């Protein structure tokens, strides 16, 4: 068991929990940046330096794209417009952390059982969770934890920024889980993952910008913005 890899996996999970549960946008962005930047190092052996560098740069770019789109939200006192402001996780960070721990246990169990099925594997018993900790099991656990904490903000939130952050963590979680369960991806698949990550960040940036603009319109015309939206005219 490599303690550095365990630390990296822990950092990914902590970053994911912070990203989806923080009330402050800046704290959430730090969580996203940590989770995305640490994930490429969850491999044994590490991928080639060029691939590693591409994934780290992609992670930094993804976090930066969201950062650029986040502007100071206007102070909102009208409770009817409170939905325009991010509120973080509704269940709080302790509950999110417990969900992540549960997902970790499930991920380790899945990985251990897969290792037991692997005819070329080290022959580990499915009951020996600790002995089976390896890079792939850490990736599986961290990936599943990220998926579990991010799935609600990514697919169930109505806020642009929260959706963006959930989207990034969910994509990273799926890519980690895929690598942990299915084996180390090829370099081209790694590049495809970077493309998906950056694309998710671009989309999140667009959603955040649109949300900020609609919030600014609401402040200029708070009554008008509460009226039913008129039919959309194209062009």
């Amino acid at each position, binding site marked *: 068991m490599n303690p550095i890899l365990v630390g990296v996996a822990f950092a990914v999970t902590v970053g994911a929990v912070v990203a989806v549960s923080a009330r402050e946008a800046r704290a959430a962005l730090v969580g996203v940046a940590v989770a995305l930047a640490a994930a490429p190092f969850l491999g044994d052996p590490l991928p080639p330096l060029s691939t590693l560098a591409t994934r780290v740069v992609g992670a930094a770019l993804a976090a930066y794209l969201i950062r650029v789109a986040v502007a100071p939200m206007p102070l909102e006192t009208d409770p009817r417009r409170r939905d325009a402001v991010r509120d973080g996780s509704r269940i709080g960070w302790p509950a999110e952390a417990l969900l992540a721990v549960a997902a970790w246990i499930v991920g380790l169990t899945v990985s251990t059982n897969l290792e037991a099925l692997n005819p070329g594997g080290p022959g580990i018993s499915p009951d020996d969770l600790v002995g089976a900790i390896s890079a792939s099991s850490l990736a599986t656990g961290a990936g599943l934890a990220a998926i579990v904490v991010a799935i609600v903000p990514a697919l169930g939130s109505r806020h642009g920024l929260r959706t963006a952050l959930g989207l990034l963590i969910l994509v990273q979680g799926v890519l980690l*889980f895929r690598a942990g369960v299915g084996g180390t991806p090829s370099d081209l698949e790694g590049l495809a993952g970077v493309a998906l990550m950056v694309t998710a960040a671009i989309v999140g940036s667009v959603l955040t910008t649109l949300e900020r603009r609609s919030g600014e319109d609401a402040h200029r015309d708070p009554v008008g913005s509460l009226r039913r939206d008129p039919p959309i005219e194209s062009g």
Partner: protein
Amino acid sequence: MSVLILVLLALPGGVATTLLARRKGVAFAVGLATAAAAVVAAASIDAADVVPIAGSLIGGSDGLRTLGTSWAAFVVLFGVLDALLGVGPAVLGPSLIGLAFGAVGLAVPDPGIGFTLLGAGALLTAVVPMMGVSAMQATGVRVGIGAVRPVIASTFLTLLVVAWAASPAGPLNALDPLGDLAPSLELAMGLALLAIASAIVLRLGAIPGHAWVARYAEAMPASAIPPLLGWGAAAFILVSLSWVEVTLAPTAATLGPEHAVIGVAAAATIILGGIAAVLHDDIEHVLAYSIVQDAGVALLAFAATGPTATAAGRDWILAAVAVKAGLAAWVHVTRSTFGTNRRADLRGWARRAPLLGAAFALVLIGAIGLPTFAGFEARSTLLRLALPAPISSLVLVTAFAPIVFLGRLLVDGVGAMSPAVRATPGMAIVHGEGAWGAWAGDRTPTRLVPALIRTNRLPLAAAAAALAAVIGLSVSIGGLGSTAVAGVPSAGVGTPLPSGVVAP
């Protein structure tokens, strides 16, 4: 190499077009030139051309050439339409990027790469155009989130299935070629097939995942529909079919209950999608629900196993996407020409714009199909293979609902003109002194062409829509044939890939 050329043209060209979107003239020039070059590059894709890159293989195929050329041609046509109709280049850039991602996704044998890139392309083509559509500034978040959810959910499902298949517990590694199929493995394979089908339901907007399609079609310009719900969706179906063909079909799994569930979902989508298209009175919703109905037919390819169903599925999705892209072009031009999308307000439209009428007639023929058309035969084959009689006959009848919801638009078009249509100027080409129109600049010979284009933009847009309809009908007649599209079909490569998928 030929696929790489297409990607190396389309990707940076698309990025440049998107970044230059505020400078409309420059963006259109870059985007349209890139798209035109992409048509040439796609038409030169060579089936024997296999390139190793970054630990994987990228190869062309006859099917990829057909699909890529059609896709790129429609990117050009919709770019021209957006330029003529004053919509702006918001859709053109993401469409090019989606084309690049789609080409690579279809050219690699590893479905994990394919699904990842197609998911990225779909996200871009769904949301980025919203930045350039002025009406989206107030409501874009709601529509954008509504489009992101099914795309990311479908990508998520497919990547999980691919991961399972490549794991020690998946059929690629756990299957004993000399022994019986373990019940647990057969169960897992059935769940995997249902997961793939669920991903298709979400991605294509089949029932019950159809709501976002209607909202998206209502909110966005019609030119934004084909990249997301047309070509991108077709690529997704093709990669899914290839995955099923390689991973599940060769096993002895019967998967009867799973096929029945998928068949029911597909039949419901065909029937209810057709009914919804009949009930709606605005042309955007008619377009959206006709696409939903097509998704139901495509889903039938997963309710039956075997190369016949797979080939029919490939033929169908290409034909359907091409015809509906032609319909989207008609919707786009009609909406801009007459300023309305309501059927009641569009009475007499074909009399005012005969070229649009001709385009619509071609779309109608392609949507219904005739015997010996590839799309028509594929639809009949899928219904026969996937559904038992007499259910297949009932569903086949409802599959001809375009006769009603498109036919009545044509009947309305040749009737008495409504006030909105009567108020629209005629569609004859203006030339001579009148060509200058409201041109305020110098009337020099070099300025004549831009002035002509500006004055005759609506007739030119109608001509572009007619060309789109012709291409759509041609593809519907010819189809894809039995050639594979995704993967490296004929290069004879048998190297197991890191994901465990053997290149076909």
